[in-house]
């Protein structure tokens, strides 16, 4: 109390008697501190970039011996994967297709559901209810994937065998349903963000032209938010394609392409599950291990590509809402 009174009653201009110029010592200290701080922060940031680059380099290098010794065409185009046979065959087509198959099937379930849920959260629920429910949806992303896997194997698989009359409960349908649930929080959250970012102005413009709420959502809000919604879908797909534990437990791990292609009751196998499942059995330096690393390279290319696509659409979404 006394201090503030003192400082208030101090003679104006008293501080002006303090020197404005830095002494050489102060100058040097400031210079060193600033640069030290910058260097530390730079190092920390760069280490994560370095980690990505090193992982990429490591995986590519480890697959190199295999890719140089084995026919790439055979690796990509053959659909039989027999790593432990007397004359091993590493045809990964069925495995690549399996990965894409469950991811797209998951999207078929998750995209309509996710977008509808996002619209419901942003445009129909009250703000209060939205703030309560959205975090709950996001909690879905925090459940460990092995828990989803348990659910797939112990609940969903027997249920499907019993009620749908399938020979095996661990199949493409099971895996993609669980992947869909796992991709949902990502899709809902990102899509809801981009739909909410379309401001009240556009909605009011639409209502003032005599549009109903449904017309406003379908004709104005979703088209205006389409970049963000596409980004949400791509991020959801990334989540599905990179997921390992659930597909390993739920997909049945049969190296085959479903025949006919729409028969989701057949078992399949994905790249992630193959790598996770066989890495322990493939001896160091063997052709088998190299083949698994080659699968890893493919997986990295896929997820990097999807990441670039989603970044592109997210930046477009940001630009669009920044302008409007």
């Amino acid at each position: 109390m006394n201090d503030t009174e003192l400082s208030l009653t101090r003679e104006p201009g008293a501080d002006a008697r303090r020197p404005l110029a830095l002494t050489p010592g102060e100058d040097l200290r400031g210079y060193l501190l600033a640069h030290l701080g910058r260097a530390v922060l730079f190092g920390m940031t760069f280490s994560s970039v370095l980690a990505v680059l090193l992982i990429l380099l490591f995986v590519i290098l480890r697959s190199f011996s295999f890719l140089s010794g084995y026919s790439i065409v055979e690796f990509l185009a053959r659909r039989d994967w027999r790593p432990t046979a007397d004359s091993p065959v590493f045809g990964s087509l069925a495995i690549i297709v399996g990965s894409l198959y469950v991811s797209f099937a998951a999207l078929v379930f998750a995209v309509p559901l996710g977008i509808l849920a996002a619209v419901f959260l942003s445009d129909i629920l009250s703000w209060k209810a939205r703030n309560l429910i959205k975090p709950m949806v996001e909690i879905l992303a925090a459940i460990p994937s092995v828990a989803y896997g348990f659910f797939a194997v112990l609940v969903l698989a027997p249920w499907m065998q019993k009620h749908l009359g399938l020979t095996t409960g661990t199949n493409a349908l099971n895996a993609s349903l669980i992947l869909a649930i796992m991709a949902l929080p990502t899709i809902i959250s990102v899509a809801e963000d981009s739909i909410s970012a379309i401001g009240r102005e556009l909605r009011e413009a639409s209502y003032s032209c005599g549009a109903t709420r449904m017309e406003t959502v379908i004709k104005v809000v979703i088209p205006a938010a389409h970049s963000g919604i596409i980004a949400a879908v791509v991020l959801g797909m990334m989540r599905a394609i990179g997921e390992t534990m659930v597909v390993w437990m739920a997909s049945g791990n049969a190296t085959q392409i479903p025949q006919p292609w729409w028969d989701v009751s057949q078992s399949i196998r994905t790249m992630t599950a193959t790598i996770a499942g066989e890495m322990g059995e493939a001896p160091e330096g063997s052709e088998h291990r190299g083949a698994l690393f080659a699968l890893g390279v493919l997986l990295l290319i896929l997820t990097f590509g999807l990441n670039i696509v989603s970044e592109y659409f997210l930046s477009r979404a940001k630009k669009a809402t920044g302008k409007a």
Partner: protein
Amino acid sequence: MSQESQDMQTTADHIKKSDVRTTVAVTPRKAPADTPADEACECAVIRSENFCLYYGSKTGVKNITMDIYPCSVTAIIGPSGCGKSTFLRSINRMNDLIPHVRTEGRLEVDGHHIYDKRTNLVNLRQQVGMVFQKPNPFPKSIFDNVAYGPRLQGIRRKDELQHIVEQSLRGGALWEEVKDDLNKSALALSGGQQQRLCIARALATRPRVLLMDEPCSALDPIATAKIEDLMGQLQGTYTIVIVTHNMQQAARVSERAAFFCLGELIEYDYTSRIFSNPKKKETEDYVTGRFG
């Protein structure tokens, strides 16, 4: 243009000659005997009787009683937060989008109490169009922006839509500037052009009333002059209600003006009287710049 200035001249004469004191009363104003041309237009389109609007426990506007007459510009002026925009947005029920809004009293458009449960909101909003403070074109082409309302009305035929778009853009004084690139994105237009596009979009639903909520506050003086010109041209056909912070603008464009303060209607009269000879002290203080 000459037609327009003639109109303005007539209005000025009319104001000078009329010696009947306009009151804020609910009863239709008696038209001065020497202005027969105006008589056809004298029954109010919008009639507000003790209209109150609350945001939860907060009062937006209270006890607004005023009649708004057709084929003229009515300005609503007043300090910030006085409920001007709230009242304007009540007229096409835009406030419905805000949670916990409650109304009392009557607000009639064409004799129908629009806060009645059985109000067709789609028809109401098509008859009472709105232009907002910030230009808010849809991120679509110019054509699709203007055709939005008509398409909602179920008009699908290309030639009919083209006709409506052209008429509306002409009405919005934008046709000459954009007629060659109707497929360009509306976001590529300048701010003033965007606002005129929004006016054209509102005209496309063929409204009777046009509500304008500070339509020039985001625009530079040149664009503002264009919009004001446009209001002069439109007032023969449309009933325009404009909320504005700019008193010169209210004086330039409006025939009647209402002064709002703290959610209440203080005074409503011919604009010339509001500015030259206000009856209430608050109005005088505001228009002379002593307050607000």
